[in-house]
């Protein structure tokens, strides 16, 4: 066979090596192929380009060129006439300059703001350390316990010469971080146990887990928060009072746990039965099998929906405003109640939104990296 082809190739000059087809690359070729391949494509591209440019220019005008960065303050009252005269043509960033400490830390005593600031820094350091895979060992547990204790001491005070700050005065970013960090730290293990429980052969455990998931998923988070803040204290004996933040924390944890449990269960279900059988055949006990074989694979599979739930849950913590807890968003809202600053909501919401975005985007980016690194065994 190959002989024939070789002979034919030499005999027939027309079958001599041909040049490869022209491959056009580079930005111009890409534009031509993707944006201007037909008249309708060209039209759509031009319209979209026009809108994009208009919008970008408009935003830059508003946010930077026409923006006012500071306003004079006379006798403790900021003079915001300049901002009002803009009539929306430019941003009044002065509100952020003036109010950022209130937005970030709420009603926490002003001169003690270094404490919640340090708390936020500790939280971020904790996330960074936990995200680094070389710290993934039992070392993390004392690190978490230690850091969270320090955070508690800093927030409450009352010892080590720190003045006592009651929980009612906490607010802003630390509240959001506390609610979501403690929430996830407890909800995730709970979710894993519930997901395993739903697949248990013991009917009582299975029933309990199904009941929990269906009940909690069946009601809105807001009603859970109401229950925690209004109804729950009614069941307590006279004089006994559990911290409002703690009650909200428990409600949020239970809520997130139910959703995460279903995500984890989805992962458990996609594992082939052979994995369970191989582990059984080797004599691994239930917990070894679950810990070494089942969960590591199941959780890797569900990283995208897990992080999806994490992100949603991080933002859901803002719902605590309805029971009067000052999280980041509520603090932002409250900041513009003051007459001088009324009407500058957009600037404040952009600022608060940017903070949420930074955290959510970091989570999302990290999950992509994690997914790639942990699923290396799948690529050849």
């Amino acid at each position, binding site marked *: 066979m190959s002989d024939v082809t070789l002979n034919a190739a030499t005999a027939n000059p027309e079958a001599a090596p041909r040049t490869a087809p022209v491959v056009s690359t580079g930005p111009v070729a890409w534009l031509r192929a993707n944006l201007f391949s037909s008249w309708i494509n060209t039209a759509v591209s031009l319209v979209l380009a026009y809108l994009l440019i208009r919008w970008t220019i408009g935003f830059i005008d508003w946010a930077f060129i026409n923006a006012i960065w500071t306003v004079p303050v006379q006798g403790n009252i900021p003079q915001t006439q300049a901002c009002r005269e803009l009539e929306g043509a430019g941003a009044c960033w002065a509100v952020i300059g003036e109010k950022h400490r209130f937005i970030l830390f709420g009603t926490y005593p002003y001169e003690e703001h270094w404490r919640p600031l340090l708390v936020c820094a500790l939280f971020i350091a904790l996330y960074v350390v936990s995200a680094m895979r070389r710290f993934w060992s039992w070392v993390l547990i004392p690190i978490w316990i230690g850091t969270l204790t320090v955070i508690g001491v800093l927030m409450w005070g009352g010892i080590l010469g720190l003045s006592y700050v009651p929980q009612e005065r906490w607010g802003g970013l630390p509240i959001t971080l506390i609610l979501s960090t403690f929430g996830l730290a407890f909800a995730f293990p709970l979710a894993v146990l519930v997901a395993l429980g739903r697949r248990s052969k013991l009917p009582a455990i299975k029933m309990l887990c199904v009941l929990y998931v269906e009940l909690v998923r069946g009601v809105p988070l807001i009603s859970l928060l109401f229950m925690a803040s209004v109804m729950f204290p009614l069941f307590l004996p006279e004089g006994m009072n559990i911290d409002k933040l703690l009650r909200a924390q428990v409600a949020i944890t239970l809520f997130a746990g139910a959703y995460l449990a279903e995500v984890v269960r989805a992962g458990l279900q996609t594992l*082939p039965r*052979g*994995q369970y*059988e*191989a*582990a*059984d*055949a*080797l*004599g*691994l*006990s239930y917990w*070894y099998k679950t810990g*070494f*074989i089942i969960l*590591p*694979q199941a959780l*890797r599979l569900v990283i995208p929906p897990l992080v999806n739930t994490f992100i949603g849950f991080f933002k859901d913590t803002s719902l605590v405003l309805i029971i009067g807890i000052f999280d980041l968003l509520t603090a932002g809202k409250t900041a513009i109640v003051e007459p001088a600053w009324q009407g500058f909501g957009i600037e404040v919401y952009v600022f608060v939104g940017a903070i949420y975005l930074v955290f959510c985007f970091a989570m999302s980016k990290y999950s992509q990296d994690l997914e790639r690194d942990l699923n*290396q*065994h*799948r*690529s*050849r």
Partner: protein
Amino acid sequence: MGQTIETEGRFASAMRTDAPPAIVLADVNKWFGTLHVLRDINLSVATGERVVVCGPSGSGKSTMIRCINRLEQHQQGKIMVDGIELSDDLRSLDAIRREVGMVFQSFNLFPHLTVLENCTLAPIWVRRMPKKEAEDLAMEYLERVRIPEQAKKYPGQLSGGQQQRVAIARALCMKPKIMLFDEPTSALDPEMIKEVLDTMVMLAETGMTMICVTHEMGFARQVADRVVFMDRGEIVESGEPEALFSDPKTDRLRLFLSQILRGH
């Protein structure tokens, strides 16, 4: 080829042992719903004996060997493994599973662990072996199945034949007394079947008690002390491979053999 002499020698050695049988199945019955998949199975396997189980698909052969380490539960009868009766008692089940290795048709390696970790996991956590010792042992068995150079790779990076050899090494690392093979070559490309069969022959030569569900008649002739033919949940015939293949007593076995041979 001197095969008869060899077979007799092996058979004699299996018969000589006075030790209690490694596996006894007595009047074992099992149903999947209303389907009667195992009917009055009686089988006794001596220590060091090598039994090949064959039969058409759906005949219950896989179910039978899966009952031996209780991946399936039988509903009637008695199964004794290594002198321990299979029951709902979890401790006796753990004890049995430690002594019985199993190789699956679809390998069932743990894809998120390296080859070496696949082999050391159970020795470390079930046998409580120090890590270093478990790794040395694993390397020894990986060498024996001739793939020590793949130890750091993930199962997904290996060919099917290599994966199945890792699976054999993984089972052997538990130092089992009995090995069960559930159609170990059925999922393999033809050119990889031989490397796995060679590994199994080598294992047979060490005197391991083995039960293999397989359609590889050449393998059965080469190593089996006894071939058990199953059909529709029953053991229809059993005996030395040569005798069974050359002189089938029942029509069912005759039909099966003719189909198998036509297939090859």
